């Protein structure tokens, strides 16, 4: 079975397709999708539709009876806004919004999931530590306490259904002095009242037996066997994919600009491209939840971002600890942890620093020093020498002590899911259930949908297969034989699959496939991934981004001087060169097109141009550009 790529066309192209008379039967489940049609393409059928200003084509070869995987709702933007009717609009596709979307997909509802970033999980969820907390940290009686313990218990099923790596490695809170032992006891009691199963207080010997890497200063520990680790963005991607497979519409790259009310009741949500008419809105907007609230006139809470810096260590030292090691907590956070990730690395962090800037993702020298000082106190062999990546994330903390999960008191139909800081990842599945209950109680009619399929097929990880399986796979699909990322052994087929599943950026491919996460950090695979994204999304390489608009990677044409045939590149010449480069990369015959166009020496942007340019370098020095290059004195060594 050879997978066909998802085609994304602009509206003219669709009109063209329609004119050829290749219309077909409707296959989209949702009646509010205007104009779905089938067009034969080669020997396959492709479904196309217009949703909320997005035009897309779906491939149906691979899955004839149901459409999965293709989060193909991004692509060419239309300038006119489209009206979409929905029963519920969820704002924010972080882990919380994604879990809610998937929960609501269990019911016969038209659900739209709206995300400002170009991909799901690109806000707070991407930088989460990935710890599935046991639940002994939170004060009994709070939402945090009950939803954490309930969410934790749901993880085995969710991880299995969604094929997301999850491991119950246990949480270990260590006391470094006699004084801190009292704090352990308090947490032991607190955990018991919260219903955390299997809690145990360990003396120093027992703790070290469990974790030989602990510092000799550790005098006692609290152990919770239900603690776990999960990959936070893989979980979010999987939730969104499964939601889409069950009929949820995902609109990425769509920041909400306003919320329409009538008589104190929510009527619609507006984005630059669409108006989503809906009576129910779930505000899961994370760092921007208070702004969404304010759009509906509800200013009952305020988001106060708290930054956390994390440092990822090489897999070489991945077995420093087995459980997630916590210090006794500070008043604002659980402290700096030593976390064995599901991927086999060690992560240390996070710091906790209040900030007013909701986009402040800087790491600092102070943060780096704080993290390593704290981590090394508990596990002395943690070393900054092993850092392979460092990053920061923002917790969407708020003005209240507990999670805010409640209907708005100002705008009817609006439900806030805000202030979801730690243990939000753990609680997410339980939060989703609670939100469904709130919607039902508030009057939304919810009938279970029989067709709900909780299973999201696992993406193939070539590197994890046996040699025999690999051989079979390559024989059936040659793209599995083309290794794109050599550090993590990621194949072209996996990158293409990630794009089918919703990746639109280099980071999106990286987070889904691990291409670029290895020891060379993308040095080798980045240009290759850019080329595949360009091909699969039908955009020039220049337009490929790292993580969405503004983060273009290599936006200008090279060899502009040669192309323009001028000594100085003015704006005009540049524009000319760009237009030409686009033409070249579009028709794929770079060099020839450039010569034909008569605009100087060939220096095409397309693949294949390089060798000709390179070999011709000496000849072309005459045209003035490379002259200085050759005239430079050489000292033969």
């Amino acid at each position, binding site marked *: 079975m050879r997978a066909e790529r998802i085609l994304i066309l602009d509206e003219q192209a669709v009109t063209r397709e329609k004119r050829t008379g290749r219309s077909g039967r409707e296959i989209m489940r949702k009646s509010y999708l205007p104009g779905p049609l089938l067009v034969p393409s080669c020997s396959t059928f492709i479904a196309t539709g217009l949703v909320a200003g997005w035009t897309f084509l779906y491939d149906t070869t691979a899955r004839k009876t149901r459409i999965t995987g293709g989060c193909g709702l991004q692509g060419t933007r239309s300038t006119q806004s489209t009206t979409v009717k929905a029963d519920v609009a969820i704002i924010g596709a972080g882990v919380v919004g994604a879990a809610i979307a998937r929960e609501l997909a269990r019911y016969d509802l038209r659900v739209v999931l709206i995300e400002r970033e170009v991909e799901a999980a690109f806000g707070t969820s991407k930088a989460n530590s990935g710890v599935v907390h046991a639940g002994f940290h939170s004060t009994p009686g709070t939402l945090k306490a009950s939803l954490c313990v309930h969410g934790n218990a749901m993880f085995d099923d969710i991880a299995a259904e969604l094929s997301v790596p999850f491991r119950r490695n246990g949480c270990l809170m260590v006391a470094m002095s006699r004084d801190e032992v009292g704090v352990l006891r308090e947490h032991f009691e607190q955990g018991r009242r919260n219903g955390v199963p299997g809690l145990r207080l360990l003396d120093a010997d027992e703790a070290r037996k469990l974790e030989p890497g602990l510092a000799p200063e550790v005098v006692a520990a609290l152990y919770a066997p239900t603690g776990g680790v999960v990959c936070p963005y893989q979980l979010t991607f999987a939730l969104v994919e499964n939601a889409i497979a069950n009929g949820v519409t995902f609109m990425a790259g769509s920041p909400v600009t306003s919320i329409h009310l009538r008589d104190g009741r929510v009527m619609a949500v507006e984005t630059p491209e669409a108006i989503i008419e809906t009576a129910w809105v779930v505000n899961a907007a994370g760092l921007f939840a208070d702004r969404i609230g304010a759009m509906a006139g509800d200013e009952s809470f305020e988001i106060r971002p708290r930054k956390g810096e994390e440092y990822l260590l090489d897999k070489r030292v991945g077995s420093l600890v087995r459980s997630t090691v916590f210090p006794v907590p500070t008043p604002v956070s659980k402290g700096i942890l030593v976390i064995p990730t599901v991927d086999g690395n060690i992560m240390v962090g996070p710091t906790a620093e209040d900030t007013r800037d909701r986009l402040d993702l800087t790491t600092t020298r102070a943060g780096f020093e704080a993290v390593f000082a704290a981590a090394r106190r508990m596990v002395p062999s943690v070393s900054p020498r092993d850092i392979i990546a460092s990053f920061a994330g923002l917790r969407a903390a708020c003005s209240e002590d507990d999670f805010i999960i409640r209907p708005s008191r100002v705008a009817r139909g609006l439900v806030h899911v805000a202030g979801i800081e730690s243990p939000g990842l753990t609680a997410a599945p339980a939060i989703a259930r609670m939100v469904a209950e709130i919607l039902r109680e508030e009057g939304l009619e919810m009938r279970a949908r029989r067709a709900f399929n909780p299973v999201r097929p696992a993406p193939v990880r070539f590197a994890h297969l046996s040699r025999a399986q690999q051989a079979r796979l390559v024989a059936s699909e040659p793209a599995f*034989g*083309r290794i794109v990322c050599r550090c993590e052994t990621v194949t072209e087929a996996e990158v293409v699959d990630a794009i089918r599943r919703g990746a639109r950026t280099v980071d999106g491919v990286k987070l889904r496939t691990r291409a670029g996460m290895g020891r060379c950090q993308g040095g080798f695979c980045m240009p290759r991934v850019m080329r595949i994204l360009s091909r699969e999304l039908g955009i020039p390489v220049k337009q490929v981004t790292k993580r969405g608009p503004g983060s273009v990677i290599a936006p*200008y044409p090279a060899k502009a001087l040669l192309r323009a045939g001028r000594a100085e590149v003015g704006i005009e010449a540049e524009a000319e060169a760009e237009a030409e480069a686009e033409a070249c990369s579009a028709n794929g015959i770079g060099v020839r097109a450039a010569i034909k166009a008569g605009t100087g020496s060939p220096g095409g942007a397309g693949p294949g141009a390089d060798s000709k340019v390179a070999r011709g370098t000496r000849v072309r020095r005459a045209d003035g550009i490379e002259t200085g290059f050759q005239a430079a004195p050489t000292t033969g060594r």
Partner: protein
Amino acid sequence: MRADVVVIGGGPAGLAAAVAAKQAGAGRVLIIERDVRLGGILPQCIHTGFGVRWFGEELTGPEYAGRFVEQAKSAGVEFMLETMVLEVTPDLRVLAVSPRDGLVVVECGAIVLAMGCRERPRGALAIPGTRPAGIFTAGTAQRLVNIEGVLPGRRAVILGSGDVGLIMARRLTLEGVKVEAVVEIMTYPGGLARNIQQCLRDFDIPLYLGHTVSRIHGRDRLEGVSVAPVDDAWVPITEKEWFIPCDTLLLSVGLIPENELSAACGIELDPATGGPIVTDEMETSVPGIFACGNVVHVHDLVDHVTEDGMVAGAAAAARAAGRAGAGAGTGAVAGAGAGAGDESRRTLGEIRPGLNVRYVVPQRFVQGGERSGGGRILTISLRPSEPAENVVLEVSAAGKVLRRQRKEKVRPSEMLQVNVDRLALPSESGVVVTVSITERKV
């Protein structure tokens, strides 16, 4: 599938090894290359400066590679392109995968590792600040510009003064990019003196020694970097930092030999080079597996890589034909007594870095007699630990000086070579030859 000599990597080292293996009479010689074309990194090195030593003329990278591709083709070397080697085993089997042939196992008479090196990435540097687009290793940027035909930005800063970074400073300047600065944390440049002159000075690009990038600015796309001098512990002195607006940061902070396959195969690596420990025949600790080029240690000049490859290829051909040193490997050092038959008489001496020498290659040499394909001369490559002037390069063994060479100037960025007469080398087993750089006594 079976081949006499399998070469992993079709760059300059691998091409030379394959050509040499054919010349030495090997039957089936196969190069396995992961890219769609041969030449390794050379096709993207469109500048000149290659081949001065080997060909006696100045060529571009693609031209240099082209000559060896021609030679290899006319010699009857076979190629598997777009093929990634997944595993090399000590029993001389290579497992590879390609879209055309699927998963393939090749049984080899001998294997030559020629995987080259990779660039040190930014992550390991943990520079404070944001994570915007616009940060590239120099080689990635070179590929984007020269192969993909796209230009990363308009205003660039280069961190590290390795040769690839210096070449890219010039390349970007020629593309109309303003290269604001090259920033080097050490007090001496990381690249060749000729590149400092031709790529920086000739284009008036400032080089800041003893400085580093102390902070990265910009949310989605790089907007600038802070640059600061560093103290003795290489920590930036932030009071003295200043801001340079730029949309591109290139990293040229070192190259690392690519030895994942070697390590997984159990080949002994030298922590100083990051590459396999090799004999003067370029044989690794696993008998029958040879290595050459940047996978052994990072070279300054491709010409030296070619020389390495020639030695490895000839030795591999001899091994595949059942001649010379079967069962030796570098493991036979200090009378390990391994091996079989007549060949067990073959022992290895050790070569070690002495004063102010960071590493030596080869680390072992075959004692007693001539090596296959070579003469009486043993060439030792080395790099100094620190820059020094008016020094003596000395090769000694068992308290005896074998060779002395005066050097006016040595620096870590420039590889040195010294030749020793094999017949002068002590033949007792377990002998250690030391190479050191000492001040010249006036």
